[in-house]
């Protein structure tokens, strides 16, 4: 199991990709299109999910994800120097999502994508979806660095050393951000706590 982290849903695929990442990145830097396609397919879901969560659950996630891989294609040499491919992708995804949020007009509303595992019936689905939106909004309300730390550590279960690399801080600083984020989220969700928990029943 990776240092300081748990296994996520596509962790095995990611680990397999990382193990031959050096060869693939070398090929990519040489302009190998098939290497680029392989890397994109292996990491796309992770990048999409990061973008989605950073954007507060938004239909812009596909645009952001494509932009991430476009930068990978244009800057493959930079990635070889940056070390972990996954950390590089996560950093670019979070940067692009934050940039998009800062540029977003207050009246701009994005369509929410479908969630995985919708639940037993339409009413329960609606309740669960509404509860999910409350939680997503609370995460979107966190200060940027706390949001990045939560999305990457709690939801994507990246090792804390990689999260530290994305943020350019120490592991201790990541843990401090997480503790503050969790405290803020607990306060933010307290008013809706019963409603959210009842959607799970």
């Amino acid at each position, binding site marked *: 199991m990776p240092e300081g982290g748990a*296994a996520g849903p596509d962790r095995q695929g990611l680990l397999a990709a990382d193990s031959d990442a050096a060869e693939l990145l070398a090929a990519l830097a040489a302009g190998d299109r098939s290497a680029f396609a392989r890397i994109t397919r292996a990491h*796309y879901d992770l990048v999409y999910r990061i973008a989605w969560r950073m954007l507060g659950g938004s239909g812009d996630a*596909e645009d952001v994800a*494509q932009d991430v891989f476009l930068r990978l294609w244009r800057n493959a040499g930079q990635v070889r120097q940056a070390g972990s491919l996954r950390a590089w992708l996560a950093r670019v995804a979070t940067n692009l999502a934050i940039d998009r949020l800062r540029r977003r007009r207050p009246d701009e509303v994005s369509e929410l*994508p*479908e*969630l995985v595992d919708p639940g037993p019936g339409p009413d329960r689905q609606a309740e669960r979806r509404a509860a999910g939106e409350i939680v997503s909004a609370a995460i979107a309300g966190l200060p*940027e660095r706390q949001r990045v730390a939560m999305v990457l550590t709690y939801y994507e279960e990246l090792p804390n050393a990689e999260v530290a690399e994305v943020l350019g801080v120490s592991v201790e600083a990541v843990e401090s951000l997480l*503790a503050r984020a*969790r405290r803020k989220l607990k306060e933010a969700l307290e008013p809706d706590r019963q409603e959210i928990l009842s959607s799970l029943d």
Partner: protein
Amino acid sequence: MVDRKDQQAARKSVLMHACTAYGADPRRWPPAARRWLDEAVEGGDAELAKARQEARELDRLLDVAGAPRVPAGAAERAVAAILSGEAQGSDMVSVDFSSQTARGRGGIGIAPLCSAAALAAALVLGIYFGASGLGDRFIPSSAASTNVANSDYDIVNHVLADLQEDMG
């Protein structure tokens, strides 16, 4: 030789910290904390049990956010758009997450420089208005400084956001 009581206290501190930062699921914890958890659970520490219970409750709420369904074929569309040259990309403004850390380590960071620049501009304008007598035609000098500060609205708000995050 390390006193056993001190060692237990230190381990408990690590476990409490892991709960606070990572939540109740030890799969997210650093390896050292995971190793000590069983011993602590067997010891029946009430404070740790309470911390884990509270963390577990928050985890239940956070898990409601769910995971998005990645649109079918999205990866292939991205590959096709990029390799065909159709994808344009955005003009991203680089976000420097480490700027506050530089300040904490004794570095200066960019936010205080922006704040200092805004204050310096206000001082220069204040001196100019005062010395030239132009300030007499307007509302008092404190408001002139406010007008200058308002012209740097974005910088000031970034500084305030940074301070708020530090205090948060």
